[in-house]
């Protein structure tokens, strides 16, 4: 059994301690906005915030997540209003298939928290998520749009 704090709520889940956090979030907690893409922390589709830091949840075991504040894409918006990154994604028509975008948005939200006005180089270094549709141009433009808002 493990007690997890996800999006401000506590969940008691009956899983083996080495279960990847990704699968606990998706299957035991039932929040499916966090996506499975590779299982080896390469693609970033499963990115969540753990104590405010963007982490690839497929590479984090549930036991390592106990006692931490976990935020998923479903918990990014606060008080009924979209997070500014989500709004920028809508305004800039960023997603194509959208499957990687939960992870992309979580990675970008963490970057902007650390660096509210990132340079292109900052973006290149921090945003390493794979997008097979190739939305990078819109991602970059939307990040700058948030920063310059």
């Amino acid at each position: 059994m493990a007690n997890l704090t996800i999006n401000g709520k506590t969940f008691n889940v009956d899983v083996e301690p080495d279960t990847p956090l990704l699968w606990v979030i998706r299957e035991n907690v039932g929040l499916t906005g966090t996506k499975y893409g590779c299982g080896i922390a390469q693609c970033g589709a499963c990115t969540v915030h753990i104590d405010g830091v963007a982490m690839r949840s497929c590479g984090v075991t549930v036991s390592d997540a106990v006692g931490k504040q976990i935020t998923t894409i479903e918990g990014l918006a606060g008080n009924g209003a979209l997070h500014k990154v989500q709004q920028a994604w809508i305004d800039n028509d960023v997603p194509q298939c959208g499957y990687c975008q939960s992870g992309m948005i979580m990675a970008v939200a963490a970057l902007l928290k650390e660096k509210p006005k990132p340079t292109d180089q900052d973006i290149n270094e921090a945003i390493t998520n794979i997008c097979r549709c190739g939305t990078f141009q819109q991602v970059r433009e939307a990040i700058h749009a948030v920063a310059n808002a």
Partner: protein
Amino acid sequence: MNHMPRLDTPRLNRRAFVIGSAALGSGLAVGLDLPAGGPTVARAADGSPEVDAWVVIRPDDTVVIRIARSEMGQGSLTGLAQLVAEELECDWSKVTTEYPTPGENVARKRVWGDFSTGGSRGIRASQDYVRKGGATARMMLIQAAANEWKVQPSECTAANSVITHTPSGRTTTFGKVAEAAAKLSPPTEVKLKDPKDWKLIGKGVKRLDTADKTTGKMIYSIDVKLPGMLNAAIKQCPVFGGTLKSYDQAKIANMKGVKKVVKVGDNAIAVVADTWWHAKTALDALPIVWDEGPNAKVSSASIAKWLDEGFDPSQPVYVGNENGDVKSALASAAKKVEAVYTYPYQNHATMEPLNATALYTPDKCEVWCGTQNGEAAFAAAVEVSGLPASKCDVYKQMLGGGFGRKGNTDYVRQAVAIAKEMPGTPIKLLWSREEDMQHGAYHPVTHCKLTAGFDANNNLTALHMRISGQSILFSLRPAALVNGKDPVTFQGLNASGEAAFGYSVPNLLIEHSMRNPPVPPGFWRGVNVNHNAIYVECFMDELAHAVNQDPLEFRRKLMANNPKHLAVLNAVAEKIGWGKPAPQGIYRGLAHFMGFGSYVAGAAEISVVDGNKIKIHRIVGATDPGFAVNPAQIDRQVAGSFVYGLSGLFYGGCTVKDGRIEQANFDTYNSMRIAEMPKVESVIMPSGSGTWGGVGEPTICVAAPAVLNAYFAATGKRIRSVPLRDQNITFA
């Protein structure tokens, strides 16, 4: 967009459409006999009237447009809605969309036409009838209003979902007359607007499906939840053509969550468990013995050797394009140039790995999946379940990428086969990334030998191109072969048509030695233009240099008879600044091609460090798709296709060892990241000549040869094989 049915209430709503008799007032499932007498109204699940198959109007004026093709990121859901809405004259802000199911399409005599979504056909192959669907509904709505006002419909107009009787100024809305309109017979003659009068087609409106993709609410197939659902993980024999020999079920019987071990066909084994993680963990622990079959020694080297043998003149070939007499022209040429190029297997690597959910009972089979071909998935469900078509259906979900892979139905068949072993229990089958990577429907492998001849004045007099390699149709659609020939092999190389060769050469011979290794091929975004464009456009670059001519000028001389090909090439040349000095250390390359009914060209500016580290500074893509329904989305398709194509050039390539694919995940089959991809400068130049071309795929093929030609300009080194990874060349 609306998903049909909603996943949280599948049992209540799984039939998206009911058809109601106005006289009876009660819903009957589509496909049942209609009661005799009285007008009938087809209704959406919420009871709103269907004006025609494409248009449902709710009393609050919401317009629901039916979309038959699948949305996988390419944006055609929005583009198709624009086409209908243009003719319907509705308020775009009130438009929403929904998918009819393949089962309903069959029950209604394919009223929505073809569901398959590949070959960049989503818009170009349905634009005519979906626009007519919109126009028909508009005429019926106007007729209903005119009937109510007892005036002539010719005195009425529609705009923004409002109908106006011009002489009197009276108005009403679509929502108010939809019920009456739905009872009318559709008009027999429907005239479409002149393109010059389009207001919505041609406008870069935003996608209709974005909001839920930013909040995690969008339901992809992998997110489907059904009451009592179990999860399955699968392993197929790693060697293509091998079979399952034995497995030791007892070893995992007591593992947590495990419910059942199911043999799937003759080459796969699945573990069903409460969660997918448990299923996968148990499957990894399951001792499995494979019979690796006849292909256990096949390797990339053995395939390459066999393909190269196809260059021997004694080998039989299919001719794709021929004029003049290449052999004698080459024999008398003053100068000859020869080169061999190769292109590897590529995996689609959709971000969402393959998956499908199936629920089988002895009298019903239902499937929830992301598919590029709803009707093929439906046929698979019918076939594998053994139930009649009237007892099966497929509920299409948003696809987390498709790129051609999800037109196949292997994963759907497996899900139904597993569900059939557990009647009454919904089974979600999910392939691991490793399974997805190693059991693809791969971009086919080909080699190409090109030989050119010049006369004494350096005029190109002969071009002989022999492709040796795999046919997609041979494996996937043998019925489409023409006397054994795979016409799709010659994409972009044909004498005419939607994928025509852009050069006029007095003596030309393009042929194919078909060789089909035991690695299953598939339609990979762009299909055969990916390699054909590299072969032709890099070789043309070689030829220009061989006679000391500018690569653009050299091409132009050969393209006088193909003005549309030339127009896009000129457009990228101008945009990249061809002919003007490049910045210090920057080198340029260009390419053009034609496929899927569209003329495309690309140009790149790169720098190279240490001979093997490439930085792409600028990249330009031009396309003439005939008509541009949504330039903003086309712009994204051009950029996205470049990312996909360049990922294949730099990082892709699936190699074969011991009969299996070596690459298993993104660590060995990488994909471009944001740092590596410059802004794509797109030039969308629809010539509006009456033909409709695709936009999802055509441009993909010009990015790689443009970069390769720039690499030659920078280094003097000609690269003739893909991927660059295997030549120790990467991004700076």
